[in-house]
């Protein structure tokens, strides 16, 4: 069984985000970039399936400029077998991403596709769902547990009311939530081996997908700075302020 994992390069979650002075976008110059944490969980799940003897091959793909190869290599160091980079000048938006992944799915014919539920930069949470619509496959989003039985994936989903388990006929799409697993540290020998693993580069045009923007970024603003707090003298004053100033009760 082949597993395809699609990963995204995003700014490191430890980095303090800065906005460009003209408010046109987030400033990414010389910012430390990393594998999107949810994508890392997706890779880990695929590697565990391989270690359990369920998956036979783990293919990892990413979309973007050459720099995304770093994240593909990171995934290869975690245990994926080979990589595919779809080269684009900029980071396309979700629908284009879903269409590109759908093309790769057509070529690779994986039995399972695992994605992060969302990327921590744009927080859209829609690529997996769009991909399901485009491919007509079943989807198990916000997964906290994945079990493969015969020709089915039993996916435990974290939903508002608790946990829901769905059975999906393979091939299917799973998007990982935070509690699906705890990703491993790449070992030194695997980091070195990752460099020798195959990595194919294809362009979006080669796949016959035209990248189109459906939204326009108007302005990026940092959140308002936190105002200093005040001390209140009595419970009465607190209640009064909550009622009349903050207007929350």
């Amino acid at each position, binding site marked *: 069984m082949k597993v395809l994992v699609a990963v995204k390069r995003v700014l490191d979650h430890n980095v303090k985000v800065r906005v460009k002075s003209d408010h046109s976008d987030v400033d990414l110059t010389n910012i430390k970039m990393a594998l999107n944490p949810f994508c890392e969980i997706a890779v880990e799940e695929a590697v565990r399936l391989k270690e359990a003897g369920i998956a036979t091959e783990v293919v990892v793909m990413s979309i973007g400029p050459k720099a995304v190869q770093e994240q593909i*290599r990171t995934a290869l160091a975690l245990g994926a077998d080979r990589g595919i980079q779809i080269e684009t000048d900029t980071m396309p938006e979700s629908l284009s991403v879903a269409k590109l992944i759908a093309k790769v799915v057509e070529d690779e014919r994986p039995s399972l596709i695992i994605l992060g539920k969302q990327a921590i930069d744009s927080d859209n949470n829609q690529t997996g769902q769009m991909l399901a619509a485009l491919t007509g496959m079943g989807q198990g989003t916000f997964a906290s547990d994945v079990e493969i039985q015969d020709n089915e994936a039993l996916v435990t989903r974290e939903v508002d009311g608790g946990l829901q388990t769905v059975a999906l006929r393979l091939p299917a799409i799973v998007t990982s939530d935070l509690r699906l697993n705890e990703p491993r540290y790449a070992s030194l020998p695997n*980091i070195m081996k990752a460099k020798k693993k195959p990595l194919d580069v294809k362009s979006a045009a080669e796949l016959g997908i035209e990248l189109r923007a459906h939204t326009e970024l108007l302005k990026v603003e940092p959140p308002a700075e936190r105002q*200093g707090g005040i001390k209140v003298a009595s419970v009465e004053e607190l209640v009064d302020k909550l009622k009349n100033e903050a207007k929350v009760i």
Partner: protein
Amino acid sequence: MPEYKAPQRDMQFVLNEVLDVENHYQNLPGCDEATPDMVAAIMEEGAKFAERVLSPLNQVGDQQGCQFNDGQVTTPDGFKEAYQQFVEGGWPSLAHDPQWGGQGLPESLGILINEMVGTANWSWSMYPGLSHGAMNTLEAHGTDQQKQTYLTKLVSGEWTGTMCLTEPHCGTDLGMLRTKAEPQADGSYKVSGTKIFISAGEHDMADNIVHIVLARLPDAPEGTKGISLFIVPKFLPTADGGVGERNGVSCGSIEHKMGIHGNSTCVMNFDGATGFLIGPPNKGLNCMFTFMNTARLGTALQGLAHAEWGFQNSLTYAKERLQMRSLTGPKAPDRAADPIIVHPEVRKLLLTQKAIAEGGRALIYLSALQVDKAHMAEDPAERAEADGLLAFLTPIAKAFLTELGFESANHGLQVYGGHGYISEWGMEQNVRDSRISMLYEGTTQIQALDLLGRKVLMTQGEALKGFTKIVHKFCQAHSDEQPMQEFLEPLNKLNKEWGELTMKIGMKAMQNRDEVGAASVDYLMYSGYVTLAYLWARMAQVAQQKLAAGEGDTAFYQAKLTTARFYFQRLLPRTRSLVETMLSGADNLMALDEDHFQF
């Protein structure tokens, strides 16, 4: 709780932008794997391990310490598990020969990892650190069979190693050592004696411990020329490489120390323990000295480690702690007081730590590249040159950086005010842990004698000239860069003065050898300040170049320049006082009669 974040941006700056490590690795045979993306990936993963696994255990290690019970040592909670993860990550194998299971990466890359591991948790880092020393010794002097039996297990990390040198009556002066090794009919030896201060001598982290022991053969000549080197495993290996019978070596007790509580410092008793000779008989000390510079560099790193740890945490505190108002009017008017970072004297404490940590990083990496070249360069002349430069820089890096690492650790505590004295904040631990670095691997005083006596005067100043030439060339190469003058002028002057001072002391030493000893520590510290000035000038030069090119990251390069300026204006002038004291002669130290010290 104190925290550590690996300063990867600065590490990359020194490696790539200042020292051009890409070019360095490409020119070394067998280092072609160490491409910039590979170095970055390894650094990134090492940083994760140091930050997430080791740093949280640093305080635990100090509070719990190692426990001794009837010959067994229990390490603090989490140490064993962290070591297991370190082994699973393949880290012990980094800089070792692929023939014995290593990854064959250059030693300098290992030092980079050691920086992060050691800063996050120095006590823990000593367990794999000592193994590394044992591995280097076996790799250079062991037989193939010894390598097969012991080295492969150390490289995989299944077993750990130690270096057993010190005895109760001899530390610095190894010529006095008494541990005996009696030859046996089967070619092995029976080793008997007591070793003390053996770091990682006994613990619960690995299946077996391989002791590398200095001892005397029955017919050995007196002094340092009669010392041989032996492997003494805790458990004798079985024919198939497993752990066999318990050998006659045991831990008698562990020391109660000022700091590094998480590391077990052991008394090791050898009672007719089976040992195996490594290298030629009576040449043990020579074999050991093959890696003395590398080992001392490992301790120099400790200076950087404590400066960095103190700096990072005291910086956070200085920005959060609200107390008093700035002398020039409130800087945070909407808050009860200003953060203490507004005060000049608090900034001095922070900038001193910053200048030492970043300058120290450059000095350690520069030395580490010499280790690579000394071992791997194709051209024997290049190897010899690197070895010479390393030999010269080692005592400076070891003594100067650990002295200033201790000073920095103290500054880190000082920023916290009274809270720095409270254990919870972790700053007093940093001071205590750093104190050992000026003692082991040769005290500051011994390093100073090594530098001035052995390295400088005994070579008729050749070793010094080799380095001052490098500094001179750098100053020449950038002499037409106007903005560099504020750094090059003082550096050039000091570089000349360095030679003149050496001549003056050399002349006095011809009349009285005590003049060497009397000038030595001041001379070493002076040498340290000038060496760091050279590296700060280099960093300032790169920063200026990048700013002029407008390639972005302006704030980073500006901060570099400002820190360089701080170093030149606030720390480098310490050389003035050192010149006066180093030239004040031996008389003010030797005149007092031994019996009159009490009055």
